[in-house]
């Protein structure tokens, strides 16, 4: 049944319901006619019985038979064996009888009257014959109508299907037309349009990510190529060559970092960023990050301080956490000012790691997009970063079931909140 097209199924259901209604109506008509005819026969017989009884009282006996009626008065009082006879000679069709025993001055008499059922039977057979023709004809007409109606009801769906089929990836902004009425079809259109909008946003994100990633990869590659090609165009002195190689190495480092960051982000996107969780002391993590950046901070004449209670321990991947915090410190060194303060505090089952500096922090208009990929504040565009540092820190925090946030209210402040225990 479920393999049939919906139009055929609707028609079949409609035809079945219609058949039941028509059959019930037919049966009702038939029974109604039958009972009213029977009642008429009954009344005729009763009237005739009264007449015949009067006749019997007057002493008459004998039998009169016509097409339609029968009257018999007998002296025997044994009642007739049956009240319906198939045939009585001289009468039309079957005959129904009524009788009564009457006391007369000359003794008991049996009075029998009969009425022919020919007309009644004929009327019933006629009705049955008409119903047998009319009901199937009505059923066929109703089914055709049902088939047409189902088609008409489904036509907007088919039209919408054709519209939807015509929408391709090359014109993701196209939407399905929505009908005036608030019905199933227009709700379907609304739902599909919302789905299309979500797909469009996903495609747009994907497209811009690919464009950004290719831009980010091309920039260091272009520098690398230009540097090397320029070095080879003419004979160079040793210091010139050394400078070129140093510059090329820096670009290679940038490419390596970019490739690694992209890999981690891709894994985080698929929800399978491998985390080796173990009990980690927050003080150890901050200490390791401070040591890693000490020489760079010293070279820039800036200090890194840590402030953390010894007792804070959380379940986290030590290396990933250090990588995330390292990105925040790297940003603070690159774009921030003054001393950098790292601190960790535990509250409500969460551990917050703050990285603060004394600079102005992220520009307010940039804050909502700070953790998106390849977004950079205007000032950071030429800083040589990959544009992925904050996105990566956020991805690592999220893989731990935590969040990353930033504020610029009291100097630069970016922090990660991680759950203390494995959830």
């Amino acid at each position, binding site marked *: 049944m479920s393999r049939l097209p919906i139009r055929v199924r609707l028609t079949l259901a409609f035809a079945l319901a219609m058949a039941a209604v028509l059959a019930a109506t037919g049966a009702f008509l038939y029974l109604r006619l039958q009972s009213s005819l029977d009642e008429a026969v009954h009344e005729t017989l009763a009237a005739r019985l009264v007449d015949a009884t009067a006749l019997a009282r007057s002493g008459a006996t004998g039998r009169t038979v016509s097409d339609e009626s029968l009257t018999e008065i007998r002296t025997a009082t044994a009642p007739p064996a049956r009240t319906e006879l198939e045939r009585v000679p001289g009468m039309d069709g079957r005959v129904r009888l009524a009788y009564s025993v009457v006391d007369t001055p000359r003794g008991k008499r049996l009075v029998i009257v009969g009425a022919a059922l020919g007309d009644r039977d004929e009327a019933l057979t006629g009705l049955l014959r008409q119903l047998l023709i009319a009901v199937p004809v009505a059923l066929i007409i109703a089914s055709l109508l049902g088939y047409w109606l189902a088609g008409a009801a489904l036509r907007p769906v088919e039209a919408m299907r054709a519209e939807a089929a015509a929408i391709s990836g090359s014109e993701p902004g196209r939407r399905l037309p929505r009908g005036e009425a608030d019905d199933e079809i227009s709700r379907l259109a609304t739902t599909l349009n919302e789905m299309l909008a979500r797909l469009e946003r996903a495609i747009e994100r994907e497209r811009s990510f690919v*464009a950004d990633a*290719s*831009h980010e990869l*091309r*920039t260091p*590659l*272009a*520098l*690398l*190529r*230009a*540097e090397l*090609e*320029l070095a080879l*165009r*003419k004979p160079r002195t040793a210091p010139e060559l050394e400078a070129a190689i140093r*510059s090329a190495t820096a670009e290679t480092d940038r490419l390596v970092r970019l490739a690694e960051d992209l890999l981690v982000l891709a894994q985080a996107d698929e929800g399978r960023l491998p985390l080796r969780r173990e009990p980690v002391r927050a003080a150890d993590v901050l200490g390791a990050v401070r040591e890693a950046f000490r020489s760079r901070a010293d070279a820039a004449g800036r200090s890194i301080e840590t402030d953390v209670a010894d007792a804070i321990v959380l379940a986290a991947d030590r290396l990933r956490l250090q990588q995330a915090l390292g990105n925040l410190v790297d940003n603070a060194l690159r774009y921030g000012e003054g001393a950098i303060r790292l601190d960790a505090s535990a509250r409500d089952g969460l551990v917050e790691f703050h990285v603060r500096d004394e600079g102005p922090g992220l520009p307010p208009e940039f804050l909502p997009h700070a953790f998106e990929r390849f977004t950079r504040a*205007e000032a950071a*565009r*030429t800083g040589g970063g990959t544009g992925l540092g904050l996105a990566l820190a956020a991805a690592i925090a999220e893989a731990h079931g935590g969040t990353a946030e930033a504020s610029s209210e009291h100097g630069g402040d970016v922090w990660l909140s991680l759950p203390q225990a494995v959830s």
Partner: protein
Amino acid sequence: MRVLVVEDEPKMAGLIRRGLAEEGYSADVAATGDDAIWMAQATAYDAIVLDVLLPGRNGFEVCRELRRAGMWSPVLMLTARDSVDDRVAGLDAGADDYLTKPFSFAELLARLRALARRPPLARPTVLEVGDLRLDPAAHQAWRGDSALSLSTKEFRMLEVFMRRPGEVLSRLYLLEHCWDYGYENRSNVVDVYVRYLREKIDRPFGRDSIETVRGAGYRLRDG
């Protein structure tokens, strides 16, 4: 040859400048679109190397702005954005060439030499003759403020007229510029299309901008 390099990555700008200098060209560097516009206004550069992703105004806008201000120095877009859409946007914004990073220095230099061979003539992206305007890239044309609805052939024919305003164009010239050799019926097709064009760009406005020059051809009135 004097070249303006518009590039916000200092290292890249320095490399291009050094490469050009070693070829004996002089190069100035602008780090933002606004700098580029005023520097181009101050000096007639023989070529402009323009990055797309710039702080503030992007390269496409800078290019459009230069053309709008009537500066016709050849522009070469040099950018890491390599999608077809980007290249089309760049060329339609008025750039003369498009090169994607990473690029080869030899190619950059060859392209700059090729650009320098072009005379600094006006090469507007939107053609204007009188109150007729035509944008070949967007495939749109206007008479004053009203958009004209032209068929492809009519549009291209109007473009041919608008590229030589005020000049008498012979039937043969129009035929050769609007139809190819594959077109069989060459007898009076030009006259037919000129009639169509007049129906759309002149008659509704009560104008007579395409005039018939007896025995010579047709001319689009200049202004």
